[in-house]
């Protein structure tokens, strides 16, 4: 029996390129393609998307019958806390205002490391907030509301 070995990293990679290429191809086809003389908005992206799909296929084919290195550890905890931090800032900076939004953003990000202790995180977030308000809000004069409508009495 033949065992089908393949480089899983590259297989996933090829598949990702194919899917992305497919997405852009589909989207480009809904746009006006135009002609080579007067290219429409869809012409150049369609060309690129097709190239991307082609390259995806090449990566996929190359991945068969070679064993490669595995993916390695994935920073799940990091992703769970780092990525929501800017999203939280975006969601609350207008409502809560600059000061509370930044404090919680720093606090969320602080928990990405398993070594961070709660008290340390609180202190760090407070220090970051204090420093940023002094530098960005007062010294540089960025037009942020320090406290937004949600927390105003």
């Amino acid at each position, binding site marked *: 029996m033949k065992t089908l070995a393949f480089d899983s*990293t590259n297989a996933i*990679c090829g598949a*990702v390129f194919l899917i*992305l*290429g497919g997405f*852009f191809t589909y*989207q480009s086809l809904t*746009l*006006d393609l135009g002609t*080579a*003389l*007067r*290219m*429409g*908005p*869809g012409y*150049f*992206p369609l060309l*690129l*998307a097709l*190239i*991307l799909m082609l*390259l*995806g296929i*090449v*990566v996929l084919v*190359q991945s068969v019958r070679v064993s490669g290195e595995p*993916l*390695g*550890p*994935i*920073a799940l*905890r*990091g*992703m769970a806390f*780092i*990525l929501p*931090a*800017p*999203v939280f*800032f*975006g969601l609350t*900076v207008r409502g809560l205002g600059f000061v509370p939004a*930044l404090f919680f*953003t*720093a*606090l969320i*990000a*602080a928990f*990405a*490391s398993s*070594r961070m202790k709660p008290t340390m*995180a609180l202190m*760090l977030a407070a220090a*970051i*907030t204090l420093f*940023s308000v002094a530098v*960005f809000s007062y010294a*540089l004069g*960025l037009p942020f509301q320090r406290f937004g409508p949600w927390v105003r009495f």
Partner: protein
Amino acid sequence: MELFSNLALGFATAASPENLLFCLIGVLLGTLIGVLPGIGATATIAMLLPITFQLEPVSSLIMLAGIYYGAQYGGSTTAILINMPGESSSAVTAIDGYQMARKGRAGAALSIAALGSFFAGTVSTFLVALFAIPLTGIALKFGAAEYFSLMIVGLVSSVALAHGSVVKALAMVSLGLLLGLVGTDIYTGTPRFTLGIREYADGLNFVAVAVGVFGIAEILRNLEGEKTRSVLVQKVSGLWPTRDDFRRMAAPVLRGTAIGSALGILPGGGAILAAFASYTVEKRVSDKPEEFGHGAIAGVAGPESANNAGAQTSFIPLLTLGIPANPVMALMVGAMIIQGIVPGPNVASEQPALFWGIIASMWIGNLMLVVLNLPLIGLWVKLLTIPYYVLFPIIMAFCSIGVYSVNSNVYDLYAVAFFGLAGYLLVKLRCEPAPLLLGFVLGPLLEENLRRAMILSRGDPTTFITRPISATLLLIALAVLVIVFLPSVKAKREEVFQEED
């Protein structure tokens, strides 16, 4: 002499007290972040980019250039002290620099790196000033077809110098170009790939993409396996190289400067190539090649000079043609566009103070590195002992503020998170993000010039090969691709990038 009056104008601009201050802040901040292990020059600049936007265009670009030199120098410091190069261009320094540090000569290695860089920076700044104007003249002859072909050369070279698979790097370029096209089509006003989100009609924010793909992705990568770093040297002493050191570093520095200046002009990442080339040359010409890998002074002095000279001359294609030669220059283009400056041959004539100010600030930035950073080495070493988990909440907070302050668009922050995730996954899939960023910046320019060239030639695609400059450029691009795919070069290339990991 026109050159000297131009340089005088540049120094007058760059040496104004506030610009000096911003240059200083830039150098310090750049070193501060760049010295953090695992964070290279590109990531450093991406993270610090937003804070420069509140300034005047000249000050902002001068500060950014300062950040660049600082980050590069910080990267070398980390490479020498803990053998963890933040950027591939300082990977070569780590080979012999770290060995020197193990032998208790960390101080000398750091000074040699700084002094070599300074010398190289001085020479190459002069070269930039010398060549900028004639090259601008050539650039003005460029039509749409030539620009298109030149950008192809840039993209292909970035592929050749990326780590790992060439096919993947090509795919990353295509993906970057596609992402660059998100937004409103300039000719027809049709929104493209915006998924119906009105906030993306102006395109994806360049800062958000850069911070996400480089900054956030690097943080995540560093969070993977949290290890305690061991700093080799707690106190750096014996900073000043001995007379013998000076004698042994002189020739490598000169050769490194020459190699770096020549290779830096090439689009696609000259500084990295320059460092490798210089190391190979030094090893070959040395009468004691067995010393290399065990703390050879030439192995630090040569590549560091080449690296810095290359970093400097890579400003030439940017300032004259508006074409970024590497991801760092791509960040510069983004910054210039946000400041309302269209990089290209017209900058020199329309905004001479800006143009020459940047060139002069290159030299001032290098001088500050030597004068300030050498005495501050003790501080940087201390910084290496700060645990990482304290640093990245700070980085995240500043990135959030920075990205939001560019346009006050909250969707940019969502894009940061999205591209952070995407960048991290792509790194995990062993794809290099640098070609993606270059593609992202060049995407709209490439499309515009392609469409314009096709209209000018009445739909005849042979215009790209019948115009001599364009044809030559395309031939160069083709040659680079063929060379990269040649079996012998392919093997050699893999070997080179293996050494680095």
